């Protein structure tokens, strides 16, 4: 692509800013995409990759900044505007109608569609497109009959049918088997050969190397690096992606681990789609210890927290808490055995947005005195309890009766943290507890975790942020593909080595595996 340098870029985004309540999702981002180029957007969850592409495809509007397509300034107000400009996005969650055929889905929502479309013509062009890009799909098949990989092809065909020149793929390989990923790569290469361009969002280094010509690394809404793939390697990318930040000052007592609190032996579990998410995972965690689980999102961390808390069935293997078997116990039984859990999805799971701060705070302790008496609930006691917690954890809320969803992300997290810490017996599981929080809130969350550890509790901390793990945890384990691949003390651990483990690279081999 050397000769494109002085041409007008196909896409140019300048100074894009976009905020969501409590989060700066995109902060002065510049992006260029040349004709016939494949650009990878790399970054952790919440780095702002999807936001940026949602702006390009008309789903969001930027707060400030400009978008130029083929050198012309454009205002993309809706996905339809984007389609008119030749931009097509394939979302992580497919937007297909299960009960309709492939052909029907392909033409669905096309503005130029006649009232009674000639489906024979549509089917013929689908078959032609399929042949051209080597991704055949039966146009008469119903979506529900197709595998996830095939459904993705339908999504791509849909965009190609609309003559998309710029294809945006949001984590396309997350749902694919290695074979399907390989085929996808082939499709993208064929498109590229025709002069089409693609942006694909990922957080996997090996895919960047395989798919892309150029890579942009985002962190916390900002571009932190931009490289051509020829000039980089996975190791380098891993380092850039996780970054090195100013370490927070964490007051930590000496590491004096006690008895084993949590023990997992060869645990296997499936994800929602029935694919293996945990593969014979073994871990152990002692009282007074913080075990940090590092790893790129989607390698089984959420499932790990869910099997421990009884929210996800264990297929094989065993879990014990305080030497008592807790495999496949109900969530309530596990709560009663002294386990607290700060879930990764704070709005959908951790808190109930439409209920008050007070009710959210009481959501674990309501089962016993002083909040309840027999079957009765004592609202005044809930308020007393909430006031106490609000001041103890510095939760900024207009009143205990405010609905939780109107608090900032940090204060929602503090509410959850307050409740979980208050009710914690011996084990605290915190999944991405500081994700999306500002510096102040992040620091207070981290200090609380350490305080729990100092009080002799066992803490399991799942994080994507290596710095967080290195500064907070006593021990680190890296999760990759459902396994714990490296367990080491954080003291003296090499962040670079952890980064490589996260990328699925064995540091001792010092070689890329694809």
């Amino acid at each position: 692509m050397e000769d494109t340098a002085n041409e007008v870029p196909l896409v140019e985004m300048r100074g894009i800013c976009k905020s969501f309540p409590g989060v700066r999702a995109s902060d002065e981002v510049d992006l260029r995409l040349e004709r016939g180029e494949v650009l990878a957007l790399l970054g952790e969850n919440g780095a702002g990759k999807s936001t940026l592409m949602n702006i390009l495809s008309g789903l969001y509007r930027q707060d400030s900044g400009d978008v130029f397509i083929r050198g012309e300034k454009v205002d993309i107000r809706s996905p339809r505007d984007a389609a008119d400009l030749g931009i097509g996005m394939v979302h992580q969650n497919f937007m297909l109608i299960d009960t309709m055929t492939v052909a029907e889905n392909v033409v669905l929502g096309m503005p130029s569609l006649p009232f009674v479309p000639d489906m024979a013509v549509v089917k013929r062009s689908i078959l032609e497109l399929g042949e051209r890009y080597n991704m055949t799909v039966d146009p008469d098949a119903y979506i529900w009959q197709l595998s996830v990989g095939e459904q993705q092809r339908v999504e791509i065909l849909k965009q190609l049918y609309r003559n998309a020149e710029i294809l945006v793929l949001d984590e396309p390989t997350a749902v694919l088997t290695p074979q399907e990923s390989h085929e996808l790569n082939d499709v993208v290469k064929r498109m590229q050969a025709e002069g089409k361009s693609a942006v694909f969002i990922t957080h996997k280094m090996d895919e960047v190397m395989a798919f892309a010509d150029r890579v942009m690394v985002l962190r916390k809404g900002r571009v932190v690096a931009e490289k051509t793939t020829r000039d980089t390697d996975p190791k380098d990318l891993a380092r850039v992606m996780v970054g090195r930040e100013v370490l927070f000052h964490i007051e930590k007592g000496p590491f004096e681990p006690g008895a084993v609190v949590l023990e997992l032996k060869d645990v296997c579990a499936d994800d929602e789609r029935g694919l293996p998410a945990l593969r014979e995972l073994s871990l152990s965690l002692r009282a007074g210890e913080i075990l940090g689980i590092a790893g790129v999102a989607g390698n089984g961390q959420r499932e790990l927290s869910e099997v421990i808390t009884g929210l996800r069935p264990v297929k094989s293997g065993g879990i014990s808490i305080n030497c008592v078997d807790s495999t496949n116990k109900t969530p309530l039984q596990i709560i009663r055995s002294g386990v607290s859990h700060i879930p990764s999805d704070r709005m959908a799971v951790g808190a109930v947005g439409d209920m008050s701060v007070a009710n959210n705070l009481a959501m674990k302790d309501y089962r016993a005195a002083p909040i309840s008496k027999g079957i009765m609930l004592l609202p005044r006691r809930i308020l007393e309890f909430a006031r106490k917690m609000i001041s103890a954890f510095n939760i900024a809320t207009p009143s205990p009766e405010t609905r939780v969803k109107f608090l900032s992300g940090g204060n929602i997290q503090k509410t959850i943290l307050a409740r979980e810490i208050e009710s914690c017996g011996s084990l605290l599981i915190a999944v991405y507890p500081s994700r999306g929080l500002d510096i102040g809130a992040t620091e207070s969350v981290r200090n609380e975790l350490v305080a729990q550890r100092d009080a002799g509790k066992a803490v399991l901390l799942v994080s994507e942020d290596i710095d967080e793990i290195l500064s907070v945890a006593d021990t680190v384990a890296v999760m990759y593909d459902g396994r714990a691949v490296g367990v080491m003390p954080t003291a003296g651990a090499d962040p670079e080595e952890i980064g490589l483990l996260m990328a699925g690279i064995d540091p001792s081999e010092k070689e890329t595996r694809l």
Partner: protein
Amino acid sequence: MTLAFEKRKTVSRTAIVVVPVVSFVASLVLTGALLMIFGANPLATYAAMFKGAFGSGRALTETLVKAIPLSLTGLGVALAFRLKFWNIGAEGQLTLAGVAATGVALFWSPWLPAPLLLPVMVLVGCAAGAAWAGVPALLKTRLNVDETLVTLMLNYVAILFSEFLYYGPWRDPKGFGFPGTRMFPKEAWFPRIAGRAHVGLYLALVAAAVLWFVLNRTRWGFELKVIGNSPKAARYQGISVERNILLAVLLSGAICGLAGVGEVAGISRRLQQGLSLGYGFTAIIVAWMAQLNPLAIPFVAVLMGGLLVGGDQVQMVMGLPSSIGLLMQGMILFPMLAGSLFTEYRIKRVGGQAVRESETGAV
């Protein structure tokens, strides 16, 4: 520039008071325009309607006669709706409970001690209502079958089953072949308070108070609230979502069933045509207008009952066709229901495209 609805940060207290008043006035104005088209004086019509519904002791008791089944089914429906379980089968639950209570009154009365007859009718009726609601609840919680359709279809099953009984095996042998069971023995009659208003009124008030207490002052109520707002969060808190939905829907069916027992034991004193008259469907409107608040439901039910009873006056006094009366009832409700939107939302001007809610995960 377009307009969009934006959810209010807190439910505005002024809006709670002002919105129903404004929508009520809007209803009267709109309906008044309709009446004028048909050549009737709106003020005179409203006065006649009010008088017909609340103007005398007798009128009031007739309004209460309607309000009893409306508030009971309204309570049942509201309980299920709070869990986002769309029970639109109150009509069927009411009917089947009426059938069950009839069975007790007709066939158990010879050997059941008289003082026990009514309590047993109530229990069996409630159980029948609960069982009828239990079918969709089980299908929903076990097999994830959509409850809306199932509850709706079961209405017709229950209604046709009751018809089968009073046209067929339960038909009064001394009734000259006309459809309807024989009259219940006197011990199976709900005592009447005034006019035709029967003790079902007390049951409805007690049910409202108890339901409010359960929902707001007990641990179970708290759990139901969490489930209704976020089943995922409930599961995470160790609350058994399926079991509690099942229990609550059974209770919902039982309360709707109580309405059916009241209708057969308190009003018709036999099973015959016109057992329900659509109370189970009107209950949905009652429940929403009361914002699913059990304490508000009896009041809304009285208003609704008044609207139904007062609607007769449109024909009787104003001499308009019955369809105008029904049209008016619809027009009075429409702004009221639309108005409730404004207690939760306000209109906001937005530039360009519609604002989309961002999912936290997508950032």
